[in-house]
């Protein structure tokens, strides 16, 4: 178990990189997911079809396959995800602006994949809002967008927060794949290197990285419990 103390810097920098991946992917997933959820509940059939197609594709293809497509398919198409080099963000998250595209590829893959689940979680929340609310809003003459913004989504949020939290926790765990798609230095890749390169025993190293993931997921879980108990879902 000395490895936890001796190589603490490896675990700490791995934790920091994984945290960056998770923050960026969570932001991306929430944006994409909300957009897709709105598309799915819209009254315009072609928009609904787009939303449904997106969810069908990205919810059913394994994350590994999506990551393969972004890491090895995008370069074949000539892209290196430079559209993700967002000006302010890439000074905070240095790997976003680097030449090496694998960080951006993985964040893209994880956002696209998790976005499908976020969409479904939000839609579950929207469906939990009583139908009368939407009808009353329509009767009052609100447009669809005003309806969503002022009536439905604020109420849907309370019902959606728990499934959404579970999706984000699952995403944090999924970020462990990053090490296998070219990213050097995140928690899972650090474990990979410590056990194979330096031949250290497996169990202490994996306990170390599990602690890293738990430090991210457990507070999130506690936060979700607090939110749920503070705002009970009332009708």
């Amino acid at each position, binding site marked *: 178990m000395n490895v936890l103390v001796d190589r603490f810097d490896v675990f700490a920098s791995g934790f920091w990189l994984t945290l960056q991946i998770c923050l960026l992917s969570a932001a991306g997933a929430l944006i994409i997911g909300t957009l897709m959820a709105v598309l799915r509940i819209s009254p315009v059939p072609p928009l609904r079809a787009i939303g449904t197609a997106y969810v069908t594709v990205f919810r059913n293809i394994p994350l590994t396959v999506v990551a393969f497509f972004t890491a090895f398919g995008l370069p074949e198409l000539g892209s290196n995800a430079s559209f993700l080099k967002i000006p302010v963000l890439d000074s905070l998250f240095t790997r976003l602006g680097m030449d090496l595209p694998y960080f951006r590829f993985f964040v893209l893959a994880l956002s696209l994949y998790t976005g499908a689940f976020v969409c479904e979680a939000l839609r579950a929340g929207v469906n939990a809002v009583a139908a009368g609310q939407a009808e009353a809003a329509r009767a009052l003459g609100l447009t669809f967008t005003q309806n969503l913004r002022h009536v439905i989504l604020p109420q849907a949020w309370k019902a959606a927060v728990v499934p959404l939290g579970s999706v984000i926790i699952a995403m944090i765990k999924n970020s462990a794949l990053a090490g296998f798609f070219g990213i050097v230095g995140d928690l899972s890749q650090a474990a990979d290197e410590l056990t*194979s390169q330096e*031949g250290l025993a497996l169990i202490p190293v994996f306990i170390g990285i599990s602690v890293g993931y738990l430090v991210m997921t457990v507070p999130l879980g506690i936060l979700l419990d607090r939110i749920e108990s503070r705002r009970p879902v009332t009708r």
Partner: protein
Amino acid sequence: MRINRLAAVGVAATIALTGLAACGGDGGSGDPKPKDVTFDAGTTMAKLNKDQKIRIGTKFDQPGFGLKGLDGKPAGFDVEIGKIITTELGIPADKIEWVEAPSKVREEVIEQGKVDIVVATYTINDARKQRIDFAGPYYVAGQQIMTRKDDDSITGPDSFKDGAKKVCSVTGSTPAKTIEASLKDKASQLVLFDVYQKCADALKTKQVDAVTTDNVILTGFVANAPDDFKLVGEKFTQEPYGIGLKKGDTAFREFVNKTLEKIASDGRYEKAWKDTAGKFDKNVPTAPPVNRY
């Protein structure tokens, strides 16, 4: 007339099939014949000989050393060395169970007893000696760099010092560790995958500028795609390839070492090289002296 034409086709087909059958019956005669030997009781060699079965871990994706062919069996220099050791144990070469041993799991499969030996471009180093034992070396490779055919900007490991060039290797391999010392910033210059083929793909699509590993592995990739890749510079390390086996099994290790010394002088080493990696690299290496550490 139709009957004559049918008869002609039938005769031709029969001749062709008998011809093929005559060739097919020869299959396997290329493999070395097992020897009739006995070993001291209690040794690994005695057990393997008695079971008439051996499990060998090797690479399935290294052209020239261990590459799985369309018949599902690996072929290459490592495979030939494995077959020679097997026949020295008195086991026929077709009784070998080939297990894929990618770089990362080579120690695990030995420690967990999933294989009896590992012959898989396995560089001898001190960290690995803590967990398993090495017989050999049977070949000395060297680390080198492979770039795109049209790229002349990289000439050796020093080309990475300015921080602009990106290099790819495999997680947990010795070359990955060695090249880190030549990089200005590991985070923006180093990409690690689990297999070399992904590195070759990344090089082709210009995501990285170089792939670094042992020269023989690179020669295989260059031979498969001579218009895309080339080797640059000289070998800048010495990578002795050894045969991995269970820690503490001194009798087995001595047996394998003696076998390697035997084949170095009786021509089997040369033949093994010429049949396999010799197709990419015409220089037949001299078998290095075994290291009885």
